[in-house]
């Protein structure tokens, strides 16, 4: 069966520090991968998605970037965090076919102070 791992679960970082969140998927190949951010009381905002290695699409201009160095690995990064980067970050995957649901990781709660 397929599983998705996301870490760390919580992270407290000072403003201006770098960020690296990692997500890996097991039990499937060539998945579509996604990074979402969820602000308190808000819906999920799509940040990046990837349909293959090295292929990244950005949905929202921001201080963040994403990379997909391996088929089942997706990384969310920032060189210098801003206060506004605080939030709950979720990684997700789908089989890549139309009409397929997303499977979410457990999330990372990021607090930038």
């Amino acid at each position, binding site marked *: 069966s397929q599983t998705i791992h*996301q870490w760390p679960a919580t992270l407290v970082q000072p403003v201006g520090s770098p960020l690296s969140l990692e997500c890996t998927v097991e039990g499937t190949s060539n998945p579509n991968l996604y990074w979402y951010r969820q602000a308190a009381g808000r819906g*999920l*905002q799509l940040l990046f998605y990837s349909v293959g290695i090295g292929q990244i699409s950005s949905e929202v201009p921001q201080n963040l970037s994403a990379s997909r160095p391996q088929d089942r690995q997706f990384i969310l990064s920032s060189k210098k965090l801003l206060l506004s980067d605080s939030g709950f970050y979720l990684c*997700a995957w789908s089989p890549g076919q139309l009409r397929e649901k997303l499977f979410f990781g457990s999330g990372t709660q990021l607090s930038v102070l």
Partner: protein
Amino acid sequence: EDQVTQSPEALRLQEGESSSLNCSYTVSGLRGLFWYRQDPGKGPEFLFTLYSAGEEKEKERLKATLTKKESFLHITAPKPEDSATYLCAVQASGYGNKLVFGAGTILRVKS
């Protein structure tokens, strides 16, 4: 602009008090409407996918229905363990495989 709106924002029910959550959408070329349950501090957990108007799906105390403009998540005789945030999302032509989420409904069921 395409939009997904959920109502109410929050709902408090007594155990056993049935109710419905609403998800209205304005998208072109709906491919699917998805319902998720999210517990605090956790990732969303998939509940249902509905593809066409008139379709219904059930799971335990939950039943999801779909019309051309909205979906309802009916909760029959809820229990405290049904307390969670319920999210709906739509997938539509022009969005590819991407899901657009509503803000969610926070449900609290008191015993």
